[in-house]
């Protein structure tokens, strides 16, 4: 006699520790096998795009910290300021551009550390979480000295940055980089050869190069599938064209490849920070821009490489004091869509590993 089987619907979230925020996954199961995953998003929707339409160009800088991805506040400010500067034709002084590069890369390392630590916990490795947050705390201290904030900085301004680096900060940052690079090797040693970690990540959650492009994946997720794309190389902004760094690419497209890409990215970011600090020119940190600036009529689309991928802002101005329309192209939004493809055919126990590996932040997905 044949056994009767039926499909099972499993709701994960919206309140679940491993979804890294408020995300609901509707998982359709056949026994333990995943047939389909439908993410249900919008729980953290703050309509930041609408809010921006009612605030001046200057006020919006601090809005990008909160309304967009909260783990990479400085990179959000970067893309917003770049968009306004390009639209209004504002030149940023050399020193400010170097400072921005240093800050962006520190932010990338901090974000990757949060990802690695929390993903480690998801997979049952507690030590790596403690180690990562130990180093992240040092970056937070570095940020606090410069910007006064740990998560929400409001440090970039249209036309430059708010304040110069404090005395001795560059040396301190240099010391941190020297300290940090061997730590990356330690994470590597802790995880890369760990049989449990390998069993849970290698070959799991594969997305092909073709699918990754078609589904709009970007950043480390795309690079782990063999797409050698990095906006910092493709369309260099600030002074990335003067920096020497490699874009790590893996071809497997599985969770392990995404881990390898991010680990290498931390090393490359440290390399960029070193060069930017060495090249830091003296001079002005901010161009004078009137507080009630108006951007000329027009539209601009600016892309940057954030810790999660291709972060863009499409800014439309009708000549007024506030933006007419802001469209935030969030990398996590498209990467989360690619999840529906990655999950097919895996076991229910892999859901956590695969979801963690794409490094989503729900305030970036929902905006």
């Amino acid at each position: 006699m044949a056994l009767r089987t039926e499909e099972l619907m499993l709701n994960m979230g919206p309140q679940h520790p491993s979804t890294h925020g408020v995300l609901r996954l509707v998982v359709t199961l056949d026994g333990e096998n995943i047939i389909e995953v439908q993410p249900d998003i919008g729980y953290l929707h703050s309509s930041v795009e609408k809010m921006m339409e009612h605030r001046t160009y200057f006020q919006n800088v601090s809005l990008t910290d909160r309304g967009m991805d909260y783990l990479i506040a400085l990179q959000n400010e970067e893309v917003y300021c770049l968009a306004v500067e390009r639209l209004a034709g504002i030149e940023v002084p050399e020193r400010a551009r170097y400072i921005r590069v240093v800050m962006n890369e520190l932010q990338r390392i901090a974000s990757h550390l949060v990802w690695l630590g929390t993903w480690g916990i998801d997979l049952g490795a507690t030590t790596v979480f403690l180690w990562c947050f130990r180093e992240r705390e040092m970056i937070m201290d570095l940020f606090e000295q410069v910007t006064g904030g740990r998560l929400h900085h409001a440090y970039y301004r249209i036309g430059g940055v708010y304040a110069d680096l404090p005395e001795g900060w560059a040396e301190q940052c240099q010391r941190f980089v020297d300290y940090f690079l061997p730590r990356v090797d330690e994470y590597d040693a802790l995880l890369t050869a760990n049989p449990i970690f390998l069993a849970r990540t290698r070959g799991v959650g594969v997305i092909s190069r073709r699918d990754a492009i078609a589904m709009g994946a970007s950043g480390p997720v795309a690079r782990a599938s063999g797409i050698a794309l990095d906006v910092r190389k493709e369309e260099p902004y600030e002074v990335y064209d003067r920096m020497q760094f490699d874009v790590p690419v893996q071809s497997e497209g599985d969770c392990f490849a995404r881990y390898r890409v991010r680990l290498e990215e931390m090393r490359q970011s440290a390399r960029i920070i070193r060069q930017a600090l060495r090249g830091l020119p003296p001079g002005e940190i901010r161009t004078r821009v009137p507080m009630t600036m108006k951007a000329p009529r027009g539209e601009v689309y600016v892309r940057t490489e954030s810790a999660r991928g291709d972060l863009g802002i499409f800014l439309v101005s009708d000549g007024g004091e506030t933006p007419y329309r802001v469209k935030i192209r969030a990398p996590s939004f498209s990467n989360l869509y690619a999840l529906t493809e990655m999950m097919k055919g895996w076991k229910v126990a892999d859901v956590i590993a695969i979801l963690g590996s794409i490094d989503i932040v729900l305030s970036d997905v929902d905006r």
Partner: protein
Amino acid sequence: MSPERIAQFLERFPRVRDLAAEQRAEQAREDEEWAAKQREWQEAVERAKAEGKPAPRPLKREESRVYHYHGPTFGVEREELLDVCRWLRDNPEFDMSYLSFVSAIDWRDRFEVVYHLRSPARRHSVVLKVPVPRDDPRVPSVTGLWRGAEWHEREAYDLLGIVFEGHPDLRRILMSADWKGHPLRKDYVYEDPQWLVEVASQRQREIAATGEDWEGRGSRS
């Protein structure tokens, strides 16, 4: 995108408007008008000097009304959209295999649906803008060409109310399913969602019936 490619594209689709070129032409016209005004003013100054009269007031250039595009931007009719998109994706010269986003702008008298296409291999990108009337905001869906458009189109439907015809699953994505209106429209007025109003009035009826104080803190004396 190089000028040759743009020319090739426009040759294939003569109905497509090159908005960046139109902007340049408009800018040139405005500059010319300004130059003519300045010449006139200069002549007036010299005339006044010769006649011994006070010089006329210096001119002030008024704010430019030109709409600026940064990068190649094309206006496409919605009937032609799918053909244009398929051609841009499949032609190896253009190879636009990556769709960055789909969104829309509410211009009060019309909508403009915006597509940002990119070619990772050729390293160029293009913006397509499709004007649609406000009372009939329909465009064909491009989910058949780029799978990644699915969520972006759902978002544009949710927040701006653009209907993408042929979309496999067009429903709200960010707002709750029973939400009324489309928040990013310029004429949108926020109202408390209906379920919230119902919950609150139900609670008020209960309070009125039992004489219980708000938050259940003892009876109302």
